[in-house]
C-alpha cells in the first residue's frame, strides 16, 4: 500500500489510469468501485467486450497468477471474484445484445457425496473472470445430474471437483458412463480437487487435471482453442 492515502476520484482518471485502477480494485476485492468503473467506461463509449477483456479479465489474470504463485489465497480470490461478478452483472446483458464473441462454455459441479465447493466456486469464478460462460451445478452431483446438464447446455467443457478421498473415485463413474453412452469425446473433461493429481486424472480418463483455478483457466483456454482449430480443419 502506498503511503499517501489520497482519495481517488474514478471519474477523473484517464481511460488508461482507470483500467490500472480497476486492476488494483479487483485485487483488493472492491465491488462497488468495480461497478462504478464499469459504468464510467460504458459512458465513455467503451464496448462491453473491451471492458470485459481489457479491464476485468486483465485484472483477474493478475489475481490468478498471484494465486497460482502462492501470494494470494482463497479468501482474497473470493473477494476479487465477487468484485468481478459485480462488473459482469452489468456487462452480461450488454455482451449478449452486442453479439460479443463467446470464449467457451463450461458445466461444472462437485461430485456426489462431496459438499466441498470452495475449489469448484473458485474455478467457476476464475473461468467467468476469463470470459467463459459457466453453468454451476453446485454440490453433490450424481451421474444423471451431469449428463442432463451437458445435454441441455451443450458446453465445451465438463468440470468435476472433489475434495475428499471418499468422493474422488466418483469422477470415474461419470466418465465411464459418458464412454458407455458414446458421448465422452464430445466434451473436454477437466477434473480438480485437493487429493487429485495429474496421474489420477489420466487414469480415470479425464482430458486434464487442473491443480488450481488459475491452471484450470489456462487449461480450458488451450483445450477450447485446440477444439476450435479441429472444427475449422474438419
Amino acid at each position: 500500500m502506498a503511503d499517501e492515502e489520497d482519495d481517488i476520484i474514478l471519474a477523473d482518471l484517464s481511460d488508461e489510469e482507470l483500467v490500472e485502477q480497476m486492476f488494483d480494485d479487483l485485487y483488493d476485492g472492491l465491488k462497488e468501485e468495480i461497478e462504478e468503473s464499469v459504468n464510467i467506461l460504458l459512458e465513455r463509449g467503451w464496448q462491453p467486450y473491451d471492458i470485459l477483456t481489457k479491464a476485468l479479465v486483465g485484472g483477474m489474470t493478475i489475481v490468478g497468477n498471484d494465486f497460482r504463485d502462492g501470494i494470494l489465497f482463497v479468501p482474497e480470490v473470493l473477494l476479487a471474484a465477487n468484485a468481478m461478478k459485480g462488473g459482469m452483472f452489468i456487462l452480461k446483458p450488454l455482451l449478449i445484445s452486442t453479439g460479443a464473441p463467446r470464449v467457451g462454455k463450461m458445466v461444472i459441479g462437485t461430485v456426489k457425496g462431496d459438499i466441498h465447493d470452495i475449489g469448484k466456486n473458485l474455478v467457476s469464478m476464475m473461468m467467468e473472470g476469463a470470459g467463459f460462460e459457466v453453468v454451476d451445478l453446485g454440490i453433490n452431483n450424481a451421474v444423471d445430474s451431469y449428463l442432463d446438464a451437458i445435454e441441455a447446455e451443450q458446453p465445451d467443457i465438463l468440470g468435476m471437483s472433489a475434495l475428499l478421498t471418499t468422493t474422488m473415485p466418483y469422477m470415474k463413474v461419470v466418465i465411464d458412463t459418458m464412454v458407455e453412452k458414446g458421448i465422452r469425446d464430445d466434451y473436454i473433461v477437466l477434473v480438480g480437487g485437493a487429493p487429485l493429481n495429474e496421474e489420477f486424472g489420466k487414469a480415470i480418463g479425464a482430458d486434464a487435471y487442473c491443480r488450481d483455478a488459475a491452471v484450470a483457466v489456462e487449461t480450458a483456454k488451450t483445450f477450447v482453442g485446440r477444439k476450435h482449430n479441429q472444427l475449422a480443419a474438419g
Partner: protein
Amino acid sequence: MTNPLHDLLSTRDWLLADGATGTNLFNMGLESGDPPEFWNETRPDNIRALYRGAVEAGSDLFLTNTFGGNASRLKLHNAGHRARELSRIGAELAREIADTAGRRVIVAGSVGPTGEIMQPVGTLSHADAVEMFHEQAEGLKEGGADVMWVETISAPEEFRAAAEAFALADVPWCGTMSFDTAGRTMMGMTSDGMAEMIETLPNPPLAFGANCGTGASDLLRTVLGFAAAGTKRAIIAKGNAGIPKYVDGHIHYDGTPELMARYALLARNAGAKIIGGCCGTMPEHLRAMREALESTPKGDSPTLERIVEEIGAFSSDSDGTGDQSGAPKRERRGRRRG
C-alpha cells in the same frame, strides 16, 4: 484438569495415533459418495474392524468414524438432524474397542470441517458453526470419547468456532489443520500463524498440529514450522501415506510402510509427540511406524534437505514462514476512500 490423554502425554515421549479412515472403509466396500458415518449404524462390525485395525497395529490413540458427522455435511444425505446421534454411535463403538484393548487406548472424537466458508468471505456465521460443532461434540461426549479431535481445517475462523464449541461442551480437545497450498492452508494460514493463534484461544488444545495435505514431506516441514514457533504444546503429525494413485478401480497411496516408518522417525525428531498417518495409512503402515519408533532413539531435528533425501521432495519451494515467505503483495498506487 485430568484427562486420559493428558496423563498419557505426561508419561510418554511419543504416542502413535491411527491412520486412514476413508481408505480403510473403501477396502471394506464403502461406495464412493456414500457417507461413512451411516456405517456406524448400519454396519457396526465394519467400523469395529476399522478401529481394531489401528489398535492391533499399536495405535495409542484412534479417531472415531465421525469426520463428516456434522449437520452441514450430513444434510447432503438428508441426515442433518442425525449429527449428534451418529456421532454418539461412532464414539460408543470406539469406546467398546478401546476398553477391551488390554492397554490404555485413547478415543478421539473426530470432527471434520463444515465444508462451508465462514463470514465475511462466505455465508456461514460464527454462531451457526459453533452450534454445529457443539452438537457433534455433545454426541461424541455421550458416546464416551476421551477427547475431541478437530481435523483438516483450513480457516482459522472455523478452528476458533470448534474451540468455542468444545468449551461449551466442556471437553478437552486437540486440533489439526491441513496445509495443502504451497505449505499453507487453503485459506492462507502458515504453520507459525497457527501456533500463534493457538495461544490466543481461551481454551487451548492439549495438542495441535497438521494432518492430510500434500504428502508426508510437506507435513514434516509444517511440523518444523510449529517447533520453530517455540510452542510448548504437544505437536501432532498425521501425514498421508504418499500420493493417491488410481490402480485397478480403486485409490492406492504410493507410500510404503518403510516410507511411513522413516516419516514417523523424522516427525518425532522434528518435534512431534503424537504421530500418525492420514489418507492411505493402513494397519501395516502403523505397525512399521510403531516398530521404528520403539527401536530407534530420538535424533536431531532434521533439516529440510534431510527430509527430501529420506522421503521425497516438497510440493512447493516455500511454506510462507520466516524469511522464506513469498514475493510481497502487489502494491497499490493510491488508496481511495469512500
